[in-house]
């Protein structure tokens, strides 16, 4: 291994080459461990699928059902991605490039739906009307949940754009619309495409919302296989197909994101962006944005509020809310969230540090491996872990530890992005100065590196915390004996149509998620959302 390591690219800094080119063994091993953790369930799923005979596998894959699922899955993915792209871009343009009344409020309201898990809003919509199901319902709920993934990068790109190009276009006779199509849109391409691909990945992995909305996709069928045969293996074949689709999307996302880095090289001074006057149209735009917020936030929150006040069936059935269960579920959700946030952040720190300080080919390989997890639906990872645990890791089977490890496998990519960025901003010179002034490694770490990278680490932990609290698949499959979380309680009550009983859990879950998102927002600074220094 050390031989391969020294083949890495030469260092480019003032640090002596010998010290730079070779990472400490412990650091390298720790980074390798996180990559291995992510690889384990994916490799296992493929290995499991490969244990089918070729003929049997062909029979299982080329059955009519798989064709139907493929059509459903692709249809909903493409539609949601396109609709999210249009809504996200339109909202971003109006917020960033016009003199819109209440601009800051709309900016926050357009990003906030990210904190509302799709299965909670589908609970709200389904309980409002049983007619909102199948394709239409799925399109509505998923677009509401995922359009901020387009809004956020597009808004950021619009803020960073040089107005000179647009002015030239206008001066050369283009009207607003042609300017947008021919000048603004091409510049938005990396942000827009990147956002769209994230939406696509989200839709491909979605499970809870589809089940509640009675729309069948690969994920719901994988769960159906699990329900009829535990780890019978049929699920692993479907899972492999789904992973392949996801990895194709992920590969596109890598390309787009790679390209985006180059576009941002120029950071020269420029004037503030152009803002257009909307005239009387502004009220129509405001009405549109208001409608969007009502749909994405108003209805879900309103329905939860409505069911909270309804005795409903809860008054006459045992499906009532016991304060004890509510308390226990909340504690479990918070506990898992905190434990997973801590473990995940700890797991990515060595890898992020390796990537920033010792960017060898191996480091990049580990990074890519961890990002694979983004392209593998949580349900698939959870299923693989259940199978692995029951057959080979008995001591961990059904333990809280295993669930926390599963969360880490799922959310390491999320944490890695943020932690790596934090280490990049922490200059190595400061560490060297600290060492030169007589601090040892651990003191340097405690007094220099961590304070510098602190906000980034905090943001990573907060993001993982939010994702874990709102996670459903892995929690459902791996939660330890006699342990309920807010998410699994909402699930249990909603799938038996006990809407009133689900409400307190849904309210607490949404409350925690919104609160933690607000905290994250404060941590990242307002500039992340509004483009202004706070």
């Amino acid at each position: 291994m050390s031989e391969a390591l020294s083949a890495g690219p030469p260092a480019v800094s003032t640090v002596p080459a010998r010290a730079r080119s070779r990472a400490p063994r412990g650091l390298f091993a720790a980074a390798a461990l996180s990559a291995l953790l992510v690889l384990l369930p994916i490799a296992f799923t493929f290995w499991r699928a490969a244990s089918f005979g070729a003929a049997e596998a062909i029979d299982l894959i080329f059955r009519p059902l798989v064709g139907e699922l493929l059509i459903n899955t692709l249809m909903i993915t493409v539609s949601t991605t396109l609709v999210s792209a249009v809504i996200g871009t339109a909202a971003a343009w109006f917020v960033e490039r016009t003199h819109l009344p209440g601009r800051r409020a709309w900016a926050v309201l357009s990003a906030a739906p990210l904190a509302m898990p799709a299965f909670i809003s589908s609970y709200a919509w389904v309980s409002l009307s049983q007619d909102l199901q199948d394709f239409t319902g799925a399109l509505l709920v998923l677009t509401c949940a995922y359009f901020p993934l387009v809004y956020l990068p597009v808004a950021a790109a619009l803020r960073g754009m040089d107005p000179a190009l647009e002015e030239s276009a206008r001066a050369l006779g283009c009207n607003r619309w042609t300017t947008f199509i021919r000048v603004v849109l091409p510049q938005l391409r990396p942000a827009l495409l990147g956002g769209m691909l994230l939406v696509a990945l989200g839709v491909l992995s979605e499970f809870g919302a589809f089940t509640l909305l009675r729309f069948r996709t690969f994920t719901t069928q994988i769960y159906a296989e699990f329900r009829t045969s535990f780890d019978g293996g049929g699920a692993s074949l479907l899972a492999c197909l789904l992973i392949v689709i996801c990895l194709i999307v992920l590969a596109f996302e890598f390309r787009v994101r790679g390209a985006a880095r180059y576009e941002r090289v120029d950071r020269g001074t420029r004037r503030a962006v152009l803002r257009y006057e909307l005239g009387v149209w502004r009220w129509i735009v405001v009405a549109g944005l208001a409608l969007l917020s009502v749909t994405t936030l108003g209805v879900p929150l309103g329905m939860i509020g409505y069911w909270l006040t309804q005795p409903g069936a809860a008054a006459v059935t045992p499906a009532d809310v016991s304060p004890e269960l509510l308390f226990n579920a909340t504690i479990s959700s918070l506990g898992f969230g905190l434990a997973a946030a801590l473990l995940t952040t700890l797991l990515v720190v060595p890898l992020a540090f390796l990537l920033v300080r010792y960017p060898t080919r191996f480091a990049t390989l580990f990074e890519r491996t961890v990002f694979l997890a983004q392209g593998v639906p949580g349900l698939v990872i959870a299923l693989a872990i259940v199978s692995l645990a029951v057959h080979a890791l008995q001591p961990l089977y059904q333990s809280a530890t295993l669930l926390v490890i599963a969360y880490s496998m799922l959310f390491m990519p999320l944490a890695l992005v943020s932690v790596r960025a934090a280490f990049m901003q922490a200059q190595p010179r400061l560490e060297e100065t600290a060492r030169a002034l007589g601090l040892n490694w651990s003191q340097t770490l405690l007094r220099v590196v961590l304070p510098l990278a602190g906000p980034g680490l905090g943001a990573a932990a907060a993001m993982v915390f939010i994702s874990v609290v709102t996670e459903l698949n892995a929690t459902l499959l791996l939660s330890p004996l006699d342990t309920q979380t807010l998410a699994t309680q909402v699930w249990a009550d909603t799938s038996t149509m006990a809407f009133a009983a689900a409400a307190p859990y849904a309210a607490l879950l949404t409350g925690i998620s919104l609160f933690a998102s607000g905290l994250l927002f404060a941590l990242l600074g307002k500039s992340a959302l509004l483009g202004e220094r706070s």
Partner: protein
Amino acid sequence: MAYNSFGARLRAVATTLGSAVALTLAAFATVPSAAEAASITLYNAQHEQVVNLLAKDFEKQSGISVKIRNGEGPAMAAQIVAEGAATPADVYFTENSPELMLLEEKGLLNKVDNSTLATVPTRFNSPTGAWVAVTARENVLAYNTTKVQASQLPQSLFDLAKPEWKGKIGIAPSDGDFLPLVSAVLALKGEAQTVQWLKGLKANAQIFDDDEGVVAAVNRGGVATGLINNYYWARLHAELGDAKTRSAIYHFANGDAGAAVNVSGAAVLKSAHNTDGAQKFLAYLVSERAQELMAKSHVMFEYPLHAGVAPDPILKPFAELSPPPLTIQQLGDDSQAGKLLRQAGLL
């Protein structure tokens, strides 16, 4: 069985390749401790809310606490088989007899106390006394009252496979309750006719994930009729109230396969850590007190099997049902049902 050789191969791979990882993970693992004397572990595939209520009541009465893991019947049975002797479960409580029959055949169940078995009619229990029946449920056809007239409803379950029902029937082949219906048809009519029926259904039916989905779609008019177990409709009705209920249920008559009755039952695992507590829980489940709680739960809507406990008034009296003549043994363990569903393209 496939999972055995699979498990063996996996263990081999795991020990050679993954032992380092496993050790690292195990280092900070919380090893599940052996069940304490005063608690039992329940693998539950019955309604979570009702079972929570029962478990609490049992705890109060006996001082034995109940730890619950919830899941779907067939999955939990397969899970217990996969876990083998290492299963943490003391008791398995599920919605349909075939899952219990599977565990019985694998020799994983302990005999139930005779006094417990004697509480319910013998014909519903395990033939060897390996599990006890707790409640019964009926297969029915739910229909949307604005889309279908009662007079247009089919005489037999097999009519639904005919071309005139194309697009008018909803089913949930992956629901744990559909497999026993297929097993019932198989036991009554043989394989050829069952496959033919399933292929007809495949051509006609809208597919849903579970019976809740079927009955909800029938009620909102998404599909005209749907094959479900009776209590799904009763539960929807309880939640929506009369005003929003636009559906009703139809009972197949004359001993038609469509009116098959299934039993929910419970068993004590041979590997139980607390056999005594587990037997007490089974005795509790068929006691008058527990059966009254279930019957009045307004969530479960099944027929209590304890003589003298009346079912929810919304249910058709048990004596008036007309199920086909099938014994628990004839219904079997569902091992063929999944295969036939796949053959017909429904799974």
